[in-house]
């Protein structure tokens, strides 16, 4: 074959044979910090990224909350004088925008980033550096948007930003430009995140975990990511049109030039309604995890839960014009959208009833997360039912743009999404931080939130029915609005109190946990999904050994089986089932500065577009440099200090029953040993174990080691934005040759390779290949790409010392 001479070269390798340098621009040394702030800003670890999403979202939650309090103070009494009309319009615009784009969405991202890999048994997301980029560009967008306050004028057109009120004629300040730029950036974060998590869910599942064995949270997240994938581009396109209108004199929404302003309404709501489900579905997922655990029963009607989520996702695209029932779109459209809106209540109702059925016959433990979950079920029901009343389109001409709508969507987004997320915080806090939030404060917290929430938003139903319009900076005495507005303001401050309680709980619980210095169990709630298998807090490499899945709720079934009468009984102690977190030689991607640099360059371009185009050049240079750096930087940090040799406890066989290690123990050692290794999903953990059991499994014959590295570098490019294509090309060029060299190895079918979603198989195959190169075993990688239920072949180097892993610790 003509291409054979290049067999050992990838597309990025230099003709001279020199290796690509680890500091491609000579600017940055590769980040090596494993602790301290540097390790956070350069991390590509999905868990740290998830935590940072959460922290950023909580920061913006406080910002948006203060804006909410300002709104409520202004409206506490008629003819409020706290805010001017101009300031009020900015505050309410920013409240809505912040809460939607910078709070609810990123809290969802926090949960999804942290949990999806854990729930599907993966070491990380599919594209770790893209993930880091997503986080930073989200932060950049949020900061850019909020910096409008400092630059004189925040956006003032409402979060829906209807044209032509958003045009330069009607909003001559720069506020709306900031809104545009900021949300284009956060949209970029959502979009890259969507691609990343979809690929993760589809390709990185543990062996045996078919789609219909995925936890409901992961399912709802997957649906959410598909919604984001298709919805965000619509918003971004609309914002580009608006940006060109405002900054470059285009006339897309210029009514004098004959524009129809309904164009913006349609574009915005085609994004905007799926957005509602983007915000609520992850919370539904969270609740679907919490309720089974504290009912000690599996989720009722799993397929119905999954398909109702998918149905909501699909139908969510056919209801957008219910935001426009009064906009004059004509009776036929109104009737169609009204009917479709009504029927989207069906899958939602199925979820509510299935949650109740899950609790039915269970043994309910009312922990804080459970209370919040039940809170969601009831409060969301109110929001859902008032939603049905809006779907009655003729009557909606009375309701729309009144406080009745404000009440409705706060019951959905606060009583639904936030309630679920706060429950999720309480539920997964131990897993993330290694200590539990105080349950008594938590319960009190729940009741205060519940009361404050209903006091704030319940009266808004009445106000709306009494004819109080939305988005008004003041109202008159004598319209009957006074009393309920005042109640609502009191409620808002009770919510604020509850938020303070939540933060206080974190502080108190953390202090107590430190004082007690107790190691938290891996599985404090007697959980059902895979994240219970790893220690708390989660070690950097997640799973010591990727579990093989045989059924839904696999982790629970490792602990419980059935006696001869079919009754569930415990068959294994939790300590015997969970992992210890002391794996070694696990491949993880190396940290990088470039995602941060790339994300920092983009808002500079944004500021440049608003103020001075020369700034765009500066920002553009950042972006180009970062893309270059990201592309040229190998995923593997070859220059990292050499791994310490296998000394100390690492060579000892880890005992299964040892208590979970403290966070500062083996985990940290692991970081220092293995951070130069590439993230590879599947076999590395098993190999690591084998290496730890048999002596010297970590040491390989030199040539094979070199080849392994080389393949890692190639395969690692799957994880680089935009480099999937070179990886595929490389595969086509080189795999046949490699196949010739390696008689025992068979590549995945050609069709699969051409499809980017199957790149993961390529990665796996390449990894496998490296090992066959070393051990010359006769096992076929093609088989391992599709593991049979409950069993996968043993790694070659361990074949003699370890039997098939899949049979160990399995009940049945």
């Amino acid at each position: 074959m003509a291409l054979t001479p290049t067999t050992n070269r990838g597309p990025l390798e230099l003709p001279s044979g020199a290796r690509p340098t680890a500091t491609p621009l000579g600017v940055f040394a590769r980040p090596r910090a494993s602790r301290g702030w540097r390790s956070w800003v350069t991390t590509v670890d999905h868990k740290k990224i998830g935590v940072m999403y959460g922290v950023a979202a909580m920061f913006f939650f406080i910002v948006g909350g203060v804006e909410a309090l300002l709104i409520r103070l202004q409206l506490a009494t008629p003819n409020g004088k706290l805010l001017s009309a101009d300031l009020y319009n900015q505050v309410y615009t920013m409240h809505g925008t912040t809460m939607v784009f910078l709070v609810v969405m990123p809290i969802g991202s926090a949960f999804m980033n942290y949990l999806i890999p854990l729930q599907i048994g993966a070491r990380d997301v599919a594209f770790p550096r893209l993930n880091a980029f997503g986080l930073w560009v989200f932060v950049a967008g949020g900061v850019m948007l909020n910096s409008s306050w400092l630059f004189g004028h925040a956006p003032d057109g409402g979060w829906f930003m209807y044209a032509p009120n958003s045009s330069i004629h009607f909003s001559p300040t720069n506020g709306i430009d900031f809104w545009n730029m900021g949300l284009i950036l956060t949209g970029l974060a959502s979009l890259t995140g969507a691609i990343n998590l979809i690929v993760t869910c589809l390709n990185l599942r543990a062996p045996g975990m078919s789609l219909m064995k995925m936890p409901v949270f992961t399912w709802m997240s997957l649906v959410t990511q598909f919604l984001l994938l298709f919805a965000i581009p619509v918003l971004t396109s609309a914002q580009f049109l608006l940006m060109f209108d405002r900054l470059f004199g285009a006339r897309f929404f210029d009514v004098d030039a004959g524009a129809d302003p309904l164009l913006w309404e349609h574009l915005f709501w085609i994004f905007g309604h799926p957005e509602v489900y983007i915000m609520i579905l992850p919370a539904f997922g969270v609740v679907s995890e919490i309720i089974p655990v504290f009912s000690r029963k599996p989720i009722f009607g799993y397929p119905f839960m999954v398909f109702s989520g998918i149905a909501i996702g699909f139908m969510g695209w056919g209801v957008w014009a219910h935001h426009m029932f009064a906009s004059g779109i004509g009776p036929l459209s109104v009737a169609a959208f009204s009917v479709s809106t009504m029927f989207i209540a069906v899958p939602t109702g199925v979820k509510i009833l299935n949650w109740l059925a899950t609790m039915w016959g269970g043994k309910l433990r009312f922990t804080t997360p459970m209370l919040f979950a039940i809170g969601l079920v009831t409060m969301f029901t109110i929001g859902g039912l008032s939603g049905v009343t809006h779907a009655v389109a003729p009557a909606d001409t009375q309701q729309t743009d009144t406080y009745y709508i404000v009440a409705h969507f706060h019951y959905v987004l606060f009583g639904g999404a936030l309630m679920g997320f706060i429950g999720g915080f309480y539920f997964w806090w131990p897993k993330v931080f290694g200590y539990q939030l105080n349950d008594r404060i938590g319960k009190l917290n729940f009741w205060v939130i519940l009361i404050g929430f209903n006091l704030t938003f319940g009266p808004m139903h009445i106000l709306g029915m009494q004819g109080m319009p939305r988005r008004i900076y003041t109202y008159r005495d004598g319209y009957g609005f006074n009393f309920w507005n005042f109640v609502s303001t009191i409620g808002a401050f009770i919510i604020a109190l509850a938020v303070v309680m939540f933060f206080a709980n974190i502080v108190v619980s953390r202090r107590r946990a430190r004082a007690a210095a107790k190691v938290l169990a891996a599985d404090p709630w007697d959980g059902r999904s895979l994240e219970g298998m790893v220690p708390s807090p989660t070690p950097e490499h997640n799973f010591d050994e990727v579990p093989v899945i045989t059924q839904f709720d696999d982790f629970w079934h490792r602990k419980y089986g059935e006696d001869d009468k079919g009754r569930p009984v415990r068959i294994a102690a939790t300590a015997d089932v969970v992992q210890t977190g002391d794996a070694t030689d696990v491949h993880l991607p190396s940290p990088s500065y470039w995602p941060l640099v790339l994300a920092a360059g983009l808002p500079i371009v944004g500021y440049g577009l608003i103020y001075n185009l020369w700034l765009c050049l500066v920002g553009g240079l950042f972006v180009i440099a970062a893309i270059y750096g990201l592309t040229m930087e190998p995923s593997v940090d070859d220059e990292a200090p050499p791994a310490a040799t296998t000394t100390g406890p690492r060579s000892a066989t880890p005992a299964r029953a040892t208590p979970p290690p403290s966070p500062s123990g083996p985990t940290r050692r692991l970081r220092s040993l293995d951070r130069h290794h590439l993230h590879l999903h599947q076999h590395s953990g098993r190999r690591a174990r084998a290496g730890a059991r048999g002596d010297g499994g970590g040491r390989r014959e030199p040539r094979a080691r070199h080849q392994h590295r080389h393949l890692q570098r190639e395969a690692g490019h799957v994880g680089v934005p935009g480099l999937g294509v070179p990886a595929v090309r490389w595969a086509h060029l080189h795999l046949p040759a490699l196949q010739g060299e390696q008689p025992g190895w068979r590549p995945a079918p050609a069709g699969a390779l051409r499809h980017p979603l199957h790149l993961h198989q390529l990665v796996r195959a390449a990894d496998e290949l490296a090992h066959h190169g070393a051990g010359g075993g006769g096992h076929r990688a093609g088989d391992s790409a599709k593991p049979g239920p409950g069993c996968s072949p043993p790694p070659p180097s361990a074949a003699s010392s370890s039997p098939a892993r899949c049979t160990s610790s399995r009940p049945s």
Partner: protein
Amino acid sequence: MLRRALSQGLRRVRPATSLAGLATAAVVLAGCGDVFDRHPQNTLHNTRGPEADFLANLINPVFAVAGVVFVLVLGGTLFVVLKFRARDDDDAEEIPRQIHGNMRLELGWTFLPALILLGVAIATVVGVFRLAEKPSEDALRVQVIGQQWWWEYRYDLDRDGAYDDVTTANDLVIPAGREVDLSITSRDVIHSFWAPRLNGKRDAVPNRDHPWRLEAERPGEYVGQCTEFCGLSHAEMRIKVIALTTGQFDRWADGQQEQARAFAADDTSLAGQGAALFNQQLCSSCHLIEGVNDDKVPNGVIKDRNLQMSRRAPNLTHFMSRTTFAGAKFDLRKDTPECRKLGVTWADDPDDLTRCLDRAALEAWLRNPPAEKAMAADPVPGKTGGRGMPNLNLDEAQIDQLIAYLTTLK
């Protein structure tokens, strides 16, 4: 007394409102008379138009159904929570049966809500098309035009297709018991026309004419507000529909078609000086007074784009037949029972005029309009023209003269 208050209060609370809302209501009724304020924009009670009645009757059963569903779900939750709670004396090792689902049950609660919703959907679709019915042949034709931040109404009395017979602002005067065929549009941004006790709302969108119907069952004044966010003074872009008897309406319509009284240039009466001031000042480059400055503001269109984004300002020809000014934010006619009784002819008799004119409000407005209502009256060069009435820095004598002149515009 308390019982009446309670039942009255509870009737105001819709079934769909949360139980917590109900509980709060109960707590609150203990002493706050404020709950029983009149609600001039109520959408569900004391509706006064056939369309609004229809909408209330359509939604009330839906509220009831929603309320029943909510009570069932909440009751179900409470039942489950109480019955299946883990008890202290439970055997911790005893695991409940692992039930994964029940196909029949799940299909049941997929299709049962779908059936309920089907019923609601049928009523809805019927309602949608009823609301979109064409108005009757003899309906009064009025064009409603929104702009920042006031409403203009133009009447087509002779039914020639052109809305050019009467032009007024702020108050939409209609005959009671007769259908009104509205054509709603806007001159700048999107607004929404809403008089809740007569009908639902319909957006006013530039470049589009939206048909809408309105009918008041009996004479009276019905207030509303713009309900699509339209910028600074969205909260004070108010609507007042005044329904008159047919006879009153005809007289009103005749009066509106007359031209304004002209003053000689050398008239030294206070009103005459005011007329001269009106023509000298910026007033006359924006506000049309028919028979006075038709040449400066042809067809009411402002020549200089910078003066007004929407290129219109309220037509003042019959200013004193209105009850409000400045986008219906302020009362021109004092809002007292005896003045209200005088209706749209409150300014015809000099005594009534003196008694009922809210002179303080008008003076304050002329002194500094942007301080009275949030507006962006100053143009931003290169970006936008003015929106709203600028401060003309009038002195007190000029204000007196102008008010004297304005009171002649009946």
